[in-house]
Every structure is written in structure tokens, then in C-alpha cells.
């Protein structure tokens, strides 16, 4: 790794990013003074910091390869183990979500389709494979990985996706398999996961040339636990009636807990967000004027329709206050134990809700609805994401029997070609009318 490259990387990470963030803020201010006033409460102050964090992350990424070891990882990979080795970590899922929000996802997916990936596959994978093939990205440049790391706790699809990347980029792939937990978590599966985490650590040490340091692993585990707990506190503020923030906000603010988990800036960020939410709650600021009904959201968001959908709901006094997806990052991470970083990581990552049976899913949805005071559930039937979507129809009938209003909404988290806006909005409106 060259020294100059390293300096560039550090400079981008420490200085240029924050400056860019500030520049963005100035531009936003200028826009605001010119532009029309947005409906609803002002944006969360923390959003600026969020942009700054993510901008820095992506900017530093441009100079990362050649400076520090680079890993591309899935959202459910135990990223904590990478931190002590100084990896720059890229999250293709996060990147794909970003492309989707900016409505560039389909264009990139089409590159992959033309290359041969069939359309009936997860659109995150297609978008990312397309981005890799065309070397196109809205963030400027993504650093080339030294290693690909996938964990099956979110799906098996990631293995197929990452294998494709491995053959395109000609880099090694390491898979941590977290066997699905149908019922109660079982010891032999978690032992298997722990062993694989050990194997992954050895691999990272080899790639980075840095020796394994168990003390450092413990510290990172502590940091990750803290950040996740703070994230959980943030989510809990939405239990207030009216809620100071919404599920749609949570989808945006989830970025750091997914991508920067285990780093101090992540923890600091959620402390700031928590404080702001607590202030909002104290002042009684509501994110939806006239909040009348509160809903749970299941599955990933329809990224490219986030704004439109939240406005459609807010106009009628509906607010999504909690989602299974954003809650996922607060659900198991408190199990981190700094004195047993590997064993606890095995538990944390095996017990992710999407790696658990339908009994757990049902109980989870019930308790989210109850604790967040919801009277309805929106289940996004996501054509792209089979693991998250199988069983939703059973789930919906169960929840209906429990007395909740439910709607299964057909969509896709990235591919707008398989989404009918007209149909979806019509169904949402009818759903809201049924509350009257």
C-alpha cells in the first residue's frame, strides 16, 4: 500500500469529507432561501451530519484501494471483526439503495441484464453487478475490493450475487453461513457460525498483514453494542404520540448503523440523533400533522418512492412509526459482549429476525404493533426479495385475525419497472379509507 495513496485516503477521510458536507449544507441553505417551503416539520438537524458522514465515507472510498485493505460486505456481515484490521468497508446494498433513491437503480440493473443476469432476481444484486460492470456510480468511484465477504443471515441470494462479483473482479469470496433458525436458536448452528467468524478473522489478518488483537475486537464489540442501543432508543421515540419522526425518516437514518457500526463516529452520530429526537419529543413536535393512525411497515422500503409514499400517507394523517427492517439493527446487537466478541457475534448475527422462523416474525410484528401503538400493518410484498416476502400473506391473515388492519402492497425495493404506482397508490388510498 503506497504512502501517497494512504495520505490521500486519510485526507479525504478527515478533512475533505467534512468540508464537502459543509459545502452541501451551504448549497442546501441557498436552495431553501430560494425555494418553496416544504410541508411538515423542518428536517431533522442530524440529517446534515448524516450526509456529511456518508459523503466522507464515499469520498474516502475513492482513495481507499492501494491505501488500506478494502472489503465489500453484505449488510448482515459481522463487520466488527474487520475494524481492528483497518479495512475500508463498502456496502453494495447501501450503495444500491442510494442508486434507487436517486432513481438510477434501473439503469444500472439494465447493464447487468444485458450482460445476462435474468430479471427475476434481486434487483439490488442486478444494480450492483451493473454498477461494477459499467464502473458507473452516483458516488464517483467505488474502491476495488481485496476481499468479498458475505453472510447468509439475510438471504442465500447474497452468495450468488457475491460469487458473480468474485468472478468479475477476480477476488476471493468468503462466506459466513448462518443456518436458518426455524425455532429456538440451536447450539450447533451457532458453534458453526463462531468457527467461521474465526476463519474470517484469520483471513482478514492475512490480507491486511495486521495481527489479530482480541482486546481491540472487544472494544469494537462494545462500540457496536452502544451504537445499536442508541439506535434502539431513537426508534423508541416514535412510540410517542404523536411521533417525532417516522419510519420513512428511519429508512434514511439507518445508513450509519448499517455501514459504520463499530466505529466511534457511528456511536456519536446516534447520540446526536437521540438527543435531537428527545428534544423534539419534549417540544411535542410531530412529524405528521394531525397524526390519526399509526402503522407498522414490513420489508424493505420502496426506495424510489419514499418521499411520494410518505406524503400520500401524511396527507391523510397516517404515519408509519416502526418497521421490521429498521428495528432489525436494534433487535439483536444488544447481545454483543465485549468479553466474548466472537461467541456473541455468532449469536447477534444468527438471530437476526430475517434468519428466524415465522413464529418469531409473527411475534415480532405483534409486539412492534403493540409497543408503538399501531392499528395497521403495511406489508410490502417485495418482488426482489424472496426471503423477506415469503410468508407475508400468512402473516397478514394472522395479524388481521388479531384485529389489525393489514394491506399487502405489491412493489419492489429498487426496480420501478415492476411497480405500478397507480395501482399501489389506489390501494393505499382505499386502505386508508377503510379506517374511517
Amino acid at each position: 500500500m503506497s504512502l501517497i495513496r494512504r495520505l490521500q485516503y486519510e485526507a479525504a477521510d478527515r478533512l475533505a469529507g467534512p468540508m464537502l458536507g459543509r459545502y452541501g449544507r451551504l448549497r442546501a441553505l441557498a436552495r431553501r432561501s430560494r425555494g418553496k417551503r416544504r410541508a411538515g416539520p423542518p428536517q431533522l438537524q442530524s440529517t446534515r451530519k448524516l450526509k456529511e458522514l456518508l459523503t466522507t465515507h464515499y469520498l474516502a472510498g475513492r482513495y481507499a484501494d492501494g491505501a488500506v485493505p478494502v472489503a465489500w460486505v453484505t449488510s448482515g456481515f459481522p463487520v466488527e471483526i474487520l475494524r481492528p484490521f483497518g479495512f475500508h468497508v463498502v456496502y453494495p446494498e447501501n450503495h444500491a439503495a442510494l442508486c434507487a433513491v436517486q432513481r438510477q437503480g434501473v439503469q444500472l440493473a439494465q447493464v447487468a441484464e444485458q450482460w445476462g443476469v435474468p430479471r427475476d432476481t434481486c434487483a439490488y444484486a442486478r444494480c450492483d453487478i451493473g454498477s461494477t460492470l459499467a464502473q458507473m456510480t452516483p458516488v464517483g468511484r467505488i474502491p476495488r475490493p481485496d476481499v468479498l465477504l458475505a453472510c447468509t443471515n439475510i438471504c442465500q441470494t447474497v452468495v450468488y450475487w457475491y460469487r458473480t462479483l468474485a468472478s468479475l473482479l477476480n477476488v476471493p469470496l468468503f462466506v459466513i453461513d448462518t443456518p436458518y433458525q426455524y425455532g429456538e436458536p440451536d447450539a450447533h448452528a451457532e458453534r458453526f457460525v463462531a468457527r467461521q467468524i474465526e476463519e474470517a478473522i484469520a483471513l482478514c489478518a492475512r490480507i491486511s498483514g495486521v495481527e489479530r488483537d482480541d482486546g481491540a475486537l472487544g472494544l469494537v464489540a462494545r462500540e457496536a453494542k452502544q451504537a445499536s442501543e442508541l439506535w434502539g432508543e431513537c426508534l423508541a421515540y416514535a412510540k410517542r404520540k404523536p411521533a417525532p419522526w417516522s419510519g420513512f425518516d428511519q429508512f434514511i437514518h439507518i445508513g450509519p448503523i448499517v455501514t459504520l457500526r463499530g466505529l466511534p463516529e457511528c456511536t456519536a452520530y446516534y447520540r446526536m440523533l437521540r438527543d435531537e429526537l428527545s428534544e423534539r419529543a419534549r417540544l411535542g413536535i410531530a412529524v405528521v400533522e394531525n397524526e390519526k393512525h399509526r402503522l407498522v411497515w414490513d420489508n424493505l422500503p420502496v426506495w424510489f418512492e419514499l418521499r411520494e409514499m410518505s406524503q400520500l400517507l401524511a396527507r391523510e394523517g397516517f404515519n408509519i412509526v416502526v418497521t421490521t427492517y429498521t428495528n432489525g439493527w436494534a433487535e439483536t446487537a444488544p447481545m454483543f459482549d465485549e468479553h466474548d466478541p466472537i461467541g456473541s457475534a455468532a449469536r447477534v448475527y444468527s438471530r437476526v429476525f430475517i434468519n428466524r422462523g415465522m413464529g418469531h416474525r409473527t411475534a415480532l410484528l405483534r409486539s412492534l404493533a403493540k409497543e408503538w401503538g399501531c392499528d395497521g400493518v403495511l406489508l410490502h410484498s417485495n418482488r426482489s426479495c424472496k426471503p423477506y416476502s415469503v410468508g407475508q400473506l400468512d402473516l397478514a391473515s394472522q395479524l388481521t385475525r388479531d384485529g389489525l388492519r393489514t394491506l399487502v402492497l405489491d412493489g419492489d425495493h429498487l426496480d420501478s419497472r415492476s411497480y405500478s404506482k397507480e395501482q399501489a397508490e389506489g390501494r393505499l388510498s382505499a386502505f386508508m379509507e377503510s379506517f374511517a
Partner: protein
Amino acid sequence: MVVTDEAIRSYLASHRGNGVVLALPVLYPREVLTALDLCGVEVWAHRTPPGCCTQGAGSMQPYLCPTVRGARVLLGQGFEGAIAAVIPHTCDSMQGLAAIGLDMGASAMPVVTFRHPRGGDRASAREFLQAELRAFIASIERIAGRKLTMDRLGDAIELHEGIDRAMRRVLRMRTCIALGDVELYRILRKREWMRASDFAFELRALEQMIDSAATPRKGIPLMVSGMVPEPSDFFEAVDAAGAYVAVDDYAAIGRRLPMHDTQEAEPIGRLIDRMMGAAPCPTRTSDPWSRVRYLVERARAARAPGAILHTVKFCEPELFDVPVLRRGLEEAGLKVLHIETEFEPQMSGQLVTRIEAFVEMLGGGDA
């Protein structure tokens, strides 16, 4: 259709052994069922009642594969008094089906899961597989109300090894058997629902038909890779186009066969070897390039100039491999046709056209 429910039902009327178990695709330790004298009936497309797709659509999204959608219906209805359903972890959708069967009251019978480790053959994976096999055996024992002895398991494994050897031989000597693909597969696919001892008998008859002096089959030899040959008039289309299946890489048939004999003595170890040693398959997350190497070698041995990738609609494991397989096979000089079927009762005219055009192309366009 290769076999109808009727064929299975009438077989089961006199050969149900000590009970019937439904088994879902694709890899599970069938030897354990044999050892407990259970008759495992596999649920692929044709075992599901007609109209299952529309029925299943009530409780399963239409963008899930027809295997899972159809199996859902059968799971709910039961089949021939099956005492359990074995659902291996094949893919995200199959895993979801097992979860629904276990927890959402969607199964008329107890569900037994089996998780094959993903991410390749390594010591940790073997250790997990061992524990998983023991847990699987314990669940089946509980449901069957009988204990499994290691001796009986050893015998069952030996029986299956013999079957595997015979099947490999039949598939390799394919051109020297005077049977059309339709008839050949009618026999080979009995493995999916016959007890091993009965199937071994059928296979022996087939082996006796191998006649190495016979003039080799006419037509263009093809390699076919996919999940399951459904709808079964696929073979008729191939035949009518002037070709035949020379290399079988169906997950339901040839792909399940272990590539080598195991040296392991202890039964559980043997089972592990057999599973880990099966031909590369995306449901076990095998590396696609290892699939390419394996397939190219077999296509060359059979002098097949073309390969049909026959995937099931919405089957992610197979679909993700298509681009790499296509490239790898083409680089090796094979022509590739990708078709998708959805277990429709018949091949569409469109698919038949594609197969015919493919064979015309392989024939040098002199049609």
C-alpha cells in the same frame, strides 16, 4: 407426464413400507428414510394437484417459483397419509415454505427441516453437517416411532451407493440403450418415489438393456442442465427436433449423484461425503466456474455440441448462474440455449420453437 399421481398411489397401495414421507427438493439424506423403511415421495411439479398455481397463489406470491407454490398446496392437503414432510434448505423460498409449514399452520403433517451448509466444503461445515444429520435422524425417529441402528443405516447407504453407480453407468452409456428419452426418464425418475430396493430392481433391468455393440443413437446429442425435466413433453420436443439428451445435469437426477465413491467407513461420515461430493449445484452454492468445468468435461465426453439450460421460473439459485455458465460453455465451444418453464401442463409452442431452432442451428442450418 412422466408419472401420474395414480402410478404413485397404486405403487404405494402395496409398497408403503412403514410409512410415507413427503420430501421436497433437493438434497436431503434419503438414505435415512430407506434405513427406517419409510417411503419417501418427492414433491416436484407433477406431484401437485392441477391448478395448484392458482390455488397456491392465494397464499403465496406469484413471483415465487412454482415448486414452492405447488408444494404449499400439497403440504396443506396431505398426500397418501404421509407422516411427515422433509424440507431441506434449498434456497430462500424453500426455507420460507418450511417456516410457514412449521409455524403458520400450513402443513397437515409434521415438518422436518434439513439445512445443508452453504459456502463450500470446509472442516467447520462438515462438523455442522454431522450435527445436522444427527438432529435430522432424531426427528425422523421420533415421528416414525422407531430407532435407527447404525448397521441399518450402513446397509441403506450401500444400497444407495449401488443405485448411484448403476445410474451413473446408465447415463454414461445412454447411447447404447434402445429407449427414447421419454421412456428412459420414466424409469429413472422412479427413484423419486420408490423405495430404494424396488428402484434398484428397476435399474437392474435398465442396465441389462445396455448394449455396447448397438449402433449409437441418431440425432444431435445435447447436454441439459436444470432442476427437473418438467413439463415432460420437453423430451418429446427434443426428440421431434432431432436431438436427444446425452448429458443429464438435472438436480433431480444426474446432479444428485456423488462424483466419487466414499472411503469413509462410519455411516454418518459416509453420508457427509456423499452430500459434499455430489456434482456442483447452485442450491448448495457451488462455485459456478466449478460447474462450468464439470459440465464442459461431460459435454466433451459425450460429444455434445450444445447445452440447454432449463431453469424453473423465478428460481434464483439457477438464474444467477446463467450468465457465467453461458460464457464458460461458449468459451469451450458449446452453443447454449436458455429456456424457462413453470410446470405448465405442456410446453408452449414458443418453447418448442426455440428448441427446434436450437437443434437446427446445431445441425449447421441445413434444415
